[in-house]
């Protein structure tokens, strides 16, 4: 058999077409998600430790580098959430009376749950 030419895939393949970069950004957005989990756990720990510990936590979070970091992470978390919600209809196929349920109706409950959870958290924070 004649010699086949095999091209190696570049380490930087994901810097090429935009869909590949978008995919890597989506995957990388799990790091900011993990960061927010850490922040929430620390917040709960400070809350349990008393008024002084919580004031210290708030002081830590209000430092400009921390605000900037959280702003960037928030954008990534939004990107993560929206892209995954929009991908739900690819994995979940429901049929109703012989017809496939449209994609937007599959994605909608995710958004409704998101809005409800956000409203509940906002109510908890703002009622004080």
């Amino acid at each position, binding site marked *: 058999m004649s010699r086949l030419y095999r091209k190696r*895939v570049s380490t930087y393949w994901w810097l090429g077409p935009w869909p590949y970069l978008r995919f890597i950004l989506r995957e990388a957005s799990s790091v900011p998600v993990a960061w927010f989990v850490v922040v929430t756990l620390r917040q709960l720990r400070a809350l349990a430790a008393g008024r002084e510990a919580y004031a210290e936590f708030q002081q830590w979070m209000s430092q400009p580098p921390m605000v900037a970091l959280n702003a960037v992470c928030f954008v990534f978390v939004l990107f993560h959430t929206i892209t995954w919600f929009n991908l739900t209809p690819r994995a979940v196929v429901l049929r109703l009376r012989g017809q496939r349920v449209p994609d937007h109706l599959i994605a909608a409950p995710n958004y409704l749950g998101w809005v409800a959870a956000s409203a509940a958290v906002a109510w908890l924070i703002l009622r004080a």
Partner: protein
Amino acid sequence: MTETITLEVARYCPDRDSAPSLQSYQVPLREEWVVLDALNYIKDQLDGSLTFRWSCRMGICGSCGMMVNGEPKLTCATFLTHYRPGPIRVEPLRYFPVVRDLVVDITDFLAKLRDVKPWLVREDAKPPEREFLQTPEQLDTYKQYSMCINCLLCYAACPVYGLDSLFKGPAALALAQRYNLDSRDQGKEERMDILSQHDGIWGCTFVGECTRVCPKNVDPAGAIQRYKLDAATEWFKSVLMPWGNR
């Protein structure tokens, strides 16, 4: 004077070249011409040594898939005018070994396709005397996935396949799902044993490009995610109800 466009075509002769190089050709830019027409013009009028696969010219046979300006395309359905004023770069399908010029070696895909048993698996000892009946709803369940023409554009769009050649790949997995969802098939468990391995469905990281480039709207990425959901459900069932049937 006839308007022309430049085609930069990848050329590779295994006996002479160590790597492919681009060769430029001027071809007439006609409204009704697709990239495949331009390649046939080159072969007939300019350079008879150019090698490429094609057959039906109507998006059915799946043999004329190539990279056009870096995008996997069926060249019989890709109009030259879309790339005016050019140039248009035509290369062999990405991630496959190149045999010559625009022809790639698809042996690996054919082996993977066989692995997923893309046929009706039945437990009956003998073939039935009558055909299996199926309702329009049952047909509709898998019809989308049965439209695959094995053109391999999805493999050329999938970085996972490019990085890990053991990965079964989008078309093979979508075709497995096509048979799993067929009401006449009884081979779902057999296929699950093969496909629930790491180089099966779990190798897919849901880049989603396979679905975007598919010329037949097969949605291989969707098929794989549905398969993952099925596999995860089966696993939970086997853990929570170990006494039940798989």
